[in-house]
């Protein structure tokens, strides 16, 4: 019985259907706003990349470029946002906003959006970005496009957010004509940040937190940064292996090359399914979509399942015994040969050329997760 009462007490009567709060005239919505994501006062790269692209959109719309920074001790980030292109930065800085939590963060976003009326709101398509954007767009309500890889605006001031669909086989442009702001999350690594310019000036507007500490029931107990977390999506260099790698030992060879290049190790689905390496290394349809600056594919035949996840890399090197392997069609450089000979030779040659500058300190690098 006590349980039942507890359940009833926690159940408010939510209004499932949400309507915009009275406003139907969107003409006074103006500006492009980027929600900056940070942890411990350090911004995620995607936030600055997004400011870079949004600068272009804002200029095209002849509208201000806005940034929203939420956190604790994040004053510095407001200045950084200006140096990266923002005209005005809203800052909500408070101890209870130290860790990201959906409710207090979305309340600040909703307040800023309703008060200052940006016509476009963008954030990174990171886990946190998707968590936050999904909540905000529902509350407002408005349309939200996920994981965009191309952005533009048209003469009707509509955001055209394009995104891959069906595992990158198709691209679709999504529009939201009905509501403002138009929202999208944007994939990391697609756009480039503007060069840092601390001579730029901008306005900083302080925003109060919208929930008091005792109203927030969710508690972040701790964050365990995982050095071991493979970060394929942010990696600038990926050395990936497939069936041809033959087993966990083969991946050690790739790891040595990745280490010299300061990169991460990737894998095809087959290599993961054979249990040679963990899923978090997997590139392709059921793994990660990556676009590093350099992708080295060793012993990977190049099935669609894999290539959809890596074909947008800037430079691709393929190493395969089979001269007919489809992977060569995607590669800028190809070597037909035995990866067990070619990869160590590359490791040695790269080490001579770039190794000293590039190699990351041992403690700083992601250890390989072979099984």
């Amino acid at each position, binding site marked *: 019985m006590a349980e*039942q009462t507890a359940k009833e007490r926690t159940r408010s009567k939510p209004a499932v259907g949400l309507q915009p709060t009275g406003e139907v005239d969107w003409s006074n919505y103006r500006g492009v706003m980027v929600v900056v994501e940070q942890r411990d006062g350090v911004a995620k790269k995607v936030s600055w990349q997004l400011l870079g692209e949004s600068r272009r959109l804002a200029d095209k719309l002849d509208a201000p470029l806005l940034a929203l920074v939420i956190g604790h001790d994040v004053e510095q980030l407001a200045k950084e946002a200006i140096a990266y292109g923002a005209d005005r930065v809203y800052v909500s800085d408070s101890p209870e906003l130290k860790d990201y939590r959906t409710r207090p963060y979305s309340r600040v976003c909703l307040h800023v959006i309703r008060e200052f009326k940006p016509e476009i709101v963008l954030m990174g398509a*990171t886990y946190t970005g998707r968590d936050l954007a999904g909540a905000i767009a529902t509350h407002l309500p408005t349309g939200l496009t996920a994981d965009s890889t191309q952005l533009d605006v048209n003469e009707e001031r509509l955001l055209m957010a394009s995104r891959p669909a069906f595992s990158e*086989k198709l691209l679709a442009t999504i529009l939201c004509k009905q509501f403002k702001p138009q929202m999208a999350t944007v994939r990391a690594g697609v756009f480039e940040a503007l060069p840092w310019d601390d001579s730029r000036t901008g306005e900083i507007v302080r925003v109060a937190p919208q929930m008091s500490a005792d109203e927030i029931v969710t508690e972040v107990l701790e964050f365990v940064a995982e050095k071991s977390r493979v970060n394929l999506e942010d990696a600038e260099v990926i050395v990936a292996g497939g069936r041809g790698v033959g087993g966990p030992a083969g991946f050690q060879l790739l790891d040595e090359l990745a280490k010299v290049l300061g990169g991460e190790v990737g894998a095809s689905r087959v290599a993961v399914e054979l249990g040679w390496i963990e899923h978090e290394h997997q590139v392709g349809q059921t793994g990660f979509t990556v676009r590093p600056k350099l992708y080295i594919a060793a012993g990977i035949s190049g099935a669609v399942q894999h290539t959809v996840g890596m074909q947008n890399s800037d430079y691709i090197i393929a190493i395969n015994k089979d001269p007919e392997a489809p992977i060569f069609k995607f590669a800028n450089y190809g070597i037909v040969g035995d990866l067990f000979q070619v990869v160590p030779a590359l490791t040695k040659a790269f080490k001579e050329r770039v190794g000293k500058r590039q190699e990351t300190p041992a403690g700083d690098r992601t250890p390989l997760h072979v099984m």
Partner: protein
Amino acid sequence: MLHIVVCVKQVPDSREIRIDPKTNTLIRQGVPAIVNYFDLNGLEEALSLKDRFGARVTVVSMGPPSADKALKQCVSMGADEGVLVSDRAFAGADTLATSYVIALTVQKVEEVWGPVDMVFCGKQTLDGDTGQVGPGVACRLDLEQLTYVEKIEQLDEKRREIVVHRHLEDGIERVKAKLPVLMTAVAELNKPRRASLPGVLRAAEYKPIVWTTNDFANLDRAQIGLKGSPTIVGKTWVPEQKKIDTQMIGLDKGIESAATDLIGQLFSTELPAKLGWA
């Protein structure tokens, strides 16, 4: 007893989807329909909580009549009940309109079977890839939202507290929240079980409950289906395969020479500058 709702979607197996080169449209014909992977991780977690604490597990899905197969599969794995929300008027929904209908459905599940303690969704679907419906449902039902859950560390039924590990890009976050919560499941959460023999036998006879628009008293028709979807698809196109002039490096002068040659060529491109090697 815990009451857990699991939201599932029947999706085309994206591995099998091809593009018609003439029309640039998807060839859906003959593509097998499966239960979205991550939704099965949600179901598995609900079922393992049922094994440990005792729970009622209700699976809900919005989709065409043929999606009853997905619900039968969930029943064969151990779910108690499956509800299919199906009506032509729901078709064409984007994530906003979908979260509206799913939220209404969860509310109706509560009316029929009692208050819900947890809702599971997959982190995203294979066909939509947005991950937006989970947060949308949480928002509409005013549930605590715990996305990308890879582990339930602790569940205290008396204090109605749950501690979960959230799987983020750069690490793991341990979060404590109060029930009721909505969680979205990642693949790392568990390995979905196979159907048991009794489960298969039950599922063979089982008819999922079907709710249409007429079953929701307060349904606002302006918020469902295509009409209730603020996002519209402008155009779709097949990304052009970059025409790449592949430079083949021969091994005739030996492997070391080939390696040096390749790196020499790389250094004549923009790559070293991009990577800060220059």
